[in-house]
């Protein structure tokens, strides 16, 4: 648990990959979050947690330049997000393909390799090789030639990961990328993202409802709630007192078998008889 953070460049003073200054986002008079100042260093792994509708997806959309901030500034790779988008890998929150989409699994991944280039493909063999390699990494070789529209949610999700990693991005943005994966593939995918980071030194921003599958890789956590947020290492944020204050109600953070559990919410009464160990 709590893996080393030696690989992060957080202390090297390297230029941050993502920089938010006094950033705020509001729709009408509803503020999702505000006053967010955050630097994500090259190679850093940031997990974004929070309830439904707290603005996690919107946070990623800001980083992609698809949504303007209502306040403050944001830059990615030292420039405005839209200009940096080429170098960003993005796994969207799950959305299936229509059954008759005229793409095979391998074509979806290939779009991550050269789908943004103009003209027609001039080196099909090179792309083909790269796609095969990516498919193998996510364990999708077995259905490489299947139409994407007929694949299961988890199978599509793994292709999304392969697609996002295809261009060796400097930042990987994952929106609930483990959703609808079985435990084995949750593990495979989270290792894959981690391994990509080790190999290429990319930063990772991972939105999730369940931090456990990735907790050993996470450097920092951004926890959104109630129009506010907390940011820090897992040990700094995932604490009963911190989350209780953030939510404004009694929250207990439990650790069980190395898994982190948040209890004390209205819907969590059935957890009370769980074997538990209080933090801190």
């Amino acid at each position, binding site marked *: 648990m709590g893996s080393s953070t030696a690989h992060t460049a957080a202390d090297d003073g390297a230029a941050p990959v993502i920089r938010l200054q006094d950033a705020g986002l509001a729709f009408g008079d509803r503020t999702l979050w505000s006053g967010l100042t955050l630097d994500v260093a090259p190679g850093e792994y940031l997990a974004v*947690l*929070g*309830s*439904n509708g*707290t603005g996690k997806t919107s946070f990623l959309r800001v980083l*992609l330049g*698809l949504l303007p901030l209502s306040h403050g500034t944001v830059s990615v790779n030292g420039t405005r997000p839209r200009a940096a*988008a*080429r170098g*960003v890998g*993005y796994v*969207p929150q799950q959305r299936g*393909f229509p059954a*008759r*989409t*005229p*793409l*095979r699994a391998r*074509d*979806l991944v290939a*779009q991550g390799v*050269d*789908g*943004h*280039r*103009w*003209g027609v*493909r001039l080196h099909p063999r090179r792309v083909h090789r790269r796609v095969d390699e990516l498919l193998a990494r996510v*364990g999708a070789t*077995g*259905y490489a030639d*299947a139409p994407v529209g*007929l694949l299961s949610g988890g199978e599509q999700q793994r292709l999304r990961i392969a697609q996002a990693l295809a261009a060796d991005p400097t930042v990987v943005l994952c929106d609930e990328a483990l959703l609808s994966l*079985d*435990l*084995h593939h*949750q*593990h*495979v995918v989270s*290792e894959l993202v981690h391994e990509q980071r080790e190999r290429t030194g990319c930063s990772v921003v991972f939105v999730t*409802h*369940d*931090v456990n599958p990735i907790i*050993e890789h996470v450097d920092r956590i951004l926890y959104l*709630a*109630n129009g506010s947020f907390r940011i820090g290492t897992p040990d700094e944020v*995932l604490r009963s007192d911190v989350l209780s204050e953030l939510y*404004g109600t009694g*929250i207990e953070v439990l650790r069980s*078998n*190395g*898994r*982190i*559990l*948040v*209890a004390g*919410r209205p*819907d969590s009464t059935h*957890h009370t008889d*769980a074997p538990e160990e209080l933090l801190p």
Partner: protein
Amino acid sequence: MITAAIDWNSFVGSVFVFDNYGELLGLLRNSLWAGAVLGLVGGLVGTFVMMRDLAFSVHGIAELSFAGATAALLLGADVVTGSLLGSVLAALVMGFTGLRAREGNSLVGVLMPFGLGLGILFLSLYEGRSSNKFSLLTGQIVSVSSLQLTSMVVLSAVVLVTLVGVWRPLTFASTDPLVARAKGLPVRGLAVVFMVLLGISVALSVQIVGALLVLALLITPAAAAMNLTSSPARTVVLSVLFAELAMVGGILLALGGNIPISPYVTTISFLLWLVSRAVRAVRERSSSYRRTTPHRGASAPLTAGATRVPEETAAADPAPGPGGLEPLKTGDRPGTG
């Protein structure tokens, strides 16, 4: 003897006419070339129409193309230009308002009868040769002038060159707009460009197969191709092949008679689709597609050096959702006011 509604012999005689065929072939070479060019454009553009789910829009654009053509007829202007103006304008309106199928559909539904009504109004005001009247709706008897052919070839070349230039981004934006946009592709711009190409293609098709039947050229071949494969490259090849078979085949059959070519084109096109659909049905029954490993996942061993999932957790948490203890699942908002 029962008198049939139509005389069978004269029916066959007028549908299949092959007198002086060789001579006609020489005379009507222009038409054949026009058909071949149109087949190429229709087959290529059609695959993107299918990908973007724009079949209904094609129909709407065709009706406005018809309105433009009849307006030109009435004003004594060039019919091709009128038809082109009508369809490109309609395509642009659709491109700028509703980009994807669902939002656009109601708009198309509103524009289509308006265009058709306008066209009929112009036609009834027009007092020229009556043979011109319905060819715009249902296609013409084969006769393409050299001038007409030249303009068709030039416009087709514009469509084809542009299409090749935007091929990959347009495919990306058509099948996966969310990620394409995140990748920095100008998804809206591509949509507008495609609508212009579509407008031009429709105007070209209207001249030959008529406004009511453009779908046979811009939808049916691509739909048939997609019944047979989900590989994008193969879809394109098959779609063009089918469109060419329908167009060139239709023209060859229509050459001798005095029936418009459109019934031939639509029939061939439909038959091809029917066969492709049957093939698909048979295939789906046997095995939908190749999978090299029937049982992946669940029982597969973890990849090298990875044994992090604790036994008891795996047992307590049947995949994919966590059961039992909620592992930091922040599904609710306590204390929100």
